[in-house]
């Protein structure tokens, strides 16, 4: 096996034209080697701050020596970019429609009748919607927070231990994903009523934890399957207790899985209508319940305005978080 390290120059970026060239180091292996037999490259690369770049492959054709003519990939890449842009457009088309109608004077999503910001103003004075939004956020945050803990523990436990009834447990753990919402909602309500548990916001949280658990466990177990177990073993060998090894070695490795699971669960919880409408106490409405009921009277554009604001707000938060994370990564690398 021969390792050839070459310095290369990168061409232009995909999205922005005319950027400056950048240097990077690539390691090219001449023979395919199964992933599990490779040494952990994190510990072996002599130049640490290129560590997270060894996995990139921006312009395949640029890594191939000039004597192999390769015009096709270049064409292939711009085709990919066009397709990706089309898909982005597909994703945002309904959002654009919603935004358009949130500025429309007409109450119905019909013709354009003039620009107005009235609906946004109306939104802020509509206490029902704002209370519903607050309830939805409370439910989602609580459910996701608790499920993150329970789900991670469950995923780790399932991947690690063998015990009688394990397949039972696994089946039950992923049941929420399969069961139709309506059946689960009615059954949960019947069950709660039989035990005379009063319905409230917290019964919604309890019901949401059930499916959030499943999705987070799924995401974490996906991540677990690809982890290298030798790190944790190394920690235990070095004298850490199992709890310490878990918290300080395993958890950080699992973090991407946990985060993606939490995001998925959060979105699903915010959007759930059936389960919430059946397990909600009186006087507690969540946002989807409110939207569902208003749709019967023709969706008023103030809900469109709310959706636009929610998306812009969460997008802004997410981009800010990502930007800060990128900055801190850079700082750590320097």
């Amino acid at each position, binding site marked *: 096996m021969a390792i050839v390290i070459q310095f290369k120059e990168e061409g232009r970026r995909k999205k922005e034209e005319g950027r400056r060239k950048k240097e990077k180091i690539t390691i090219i292996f001449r023979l395919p080697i199964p992933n599990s037999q490779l040494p952990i490259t994190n510990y072996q690369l002599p130049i640490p701050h290129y560590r997270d770049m060894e996995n990139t492959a921006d312009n395949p054709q640029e890594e191939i020596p000039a004597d192999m003519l390769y015009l096709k990939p270049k064409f292939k890449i711009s085709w990919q970019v066009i397709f990706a842009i089309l898909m982005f457009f597909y994703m945002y088309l309904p*959002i654009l*429609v919603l935004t358009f109608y949130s500025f429309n004077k007409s109450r119905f999503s019909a013709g354009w009748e003039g620009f107005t910001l009235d609906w946004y103003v109306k939104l802020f004075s509509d206490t029902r919607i704002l209370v519903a939004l607050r309830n939805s956020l409370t439910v989602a945050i609580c459910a996701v927070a608790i499920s993150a803990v329970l*789900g991670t523990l469950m995923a780790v436990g399932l991947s690690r231990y063998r015990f009688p009834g394990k397949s039972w447990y696994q089946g039950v753990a992923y049941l929420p994903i399969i069961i139709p919402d309506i059946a*689960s909602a009615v059954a949960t309500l019947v069950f709660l009523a039989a035990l005379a548990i009063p319905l409230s916001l917290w019964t919604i949280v309890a019901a949401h934890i059930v499916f959030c658990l499943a999705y987070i466990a799924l995401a974490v177990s996906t991540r677990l399957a690809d982890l290298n177990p030798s790190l944790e073993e190394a920690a235990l060998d070095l004298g850490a207790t199992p709890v310490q090894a878990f918290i300080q070695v395993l958890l950080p490795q699992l973090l991407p899985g946990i985060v993606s699971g939490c995001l998925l669960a959060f979105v699903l919880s915010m959007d759930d209508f059936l389960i919430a409408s059946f397990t909600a106490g009186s006087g507690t409405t969540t946002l989807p319940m409110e939207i569902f009921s208003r749709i019967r009277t023709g969706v008023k554009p103030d809900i469109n305005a709310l959706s636009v604001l929610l998306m812009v707000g969460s997008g802004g938060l997410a981009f800010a978080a990502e930007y800060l994370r990128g900055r801190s990564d850079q700082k750590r690398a320097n």
Partner: protein
Amino acid sequence: MAVSTKAPPPIPPNSPSKSETVSPWSSWAGPLALLGPSGLWLALLLVVPTIVIFQLSLVPNIKPGDLVIPSGIDNYLRVFEPLNLQVIGRSVFFATGTTILCLVLGFPVAYWIALNVSPKWRNLTLLGFVLPLWTSSLLRSYAWITILRPTGVLNSVLALVGIPPLELLNQSSAVLIGMAYSYLPYIVTILYASLEKLDRRLLEASQDLGANPVETFWQVTVPQTMPGIAAGSLLVFISCLGDFVDPELLGGASSMTAARLIYNQFLGATQNWGLGSALSMVLIFAVSIGIALLLKYGDRNTI
């Protein structure tokens, strides 16, 4: 990571160094601590309601207020009548069509983000793709009506270009478009996670060995990302089976799906909770068997 840096104590020859310990009590502490809380929660709020549904499905013509004594499988016999089977078949058709469409549309996007976008922008691009999920799915489905109706956005744009208007709304095509739209972000995220772990050196190696891009794709990329493809398809398929909003809004007059049928039994005029429960159990069993088969013949990595 932050492992203790003091000199390790000398390890006695017979003391265990892994997570498994000798004493029977402490061998239960680990699993109990990890699996206990969630197990309890699931048992209470999932297993018991499922048993409730199962019991209800075994009582023909049960109405609220009746005594629940399992007495017959009439409800199941009714589920397998041609009428209801047709409805289930339509659900499966929509689900399969949507899954295929999502795969076809989502894979290139995930591929592009994972492999061809520089790492600095990768997360942001993915986030940007997934952001529409933050709006209510119901609103987005209603927006599709606005887009696809005869004088809607799509046809207005086509008219500008000179193409005759497309009659897409109130047909299966609109349902597939709408449902694929709803679930595309999920599958892109899962495929992205899988593709990000793809070892590019394998791709380069295969190119070095003389394969063209198409061959590389089918013989290297796809097998490597099979766990992600399987997990994503499964997720989309199951979610589509439970979706009753999109087919009803976009599908026109012949759009009864299994999910809507179950909804009608519980929340409709007939109040046939028994039939609704039986339909739910049939769906659950069918999907479980599907998953079991998938696990048996597929890769075990994701579940």
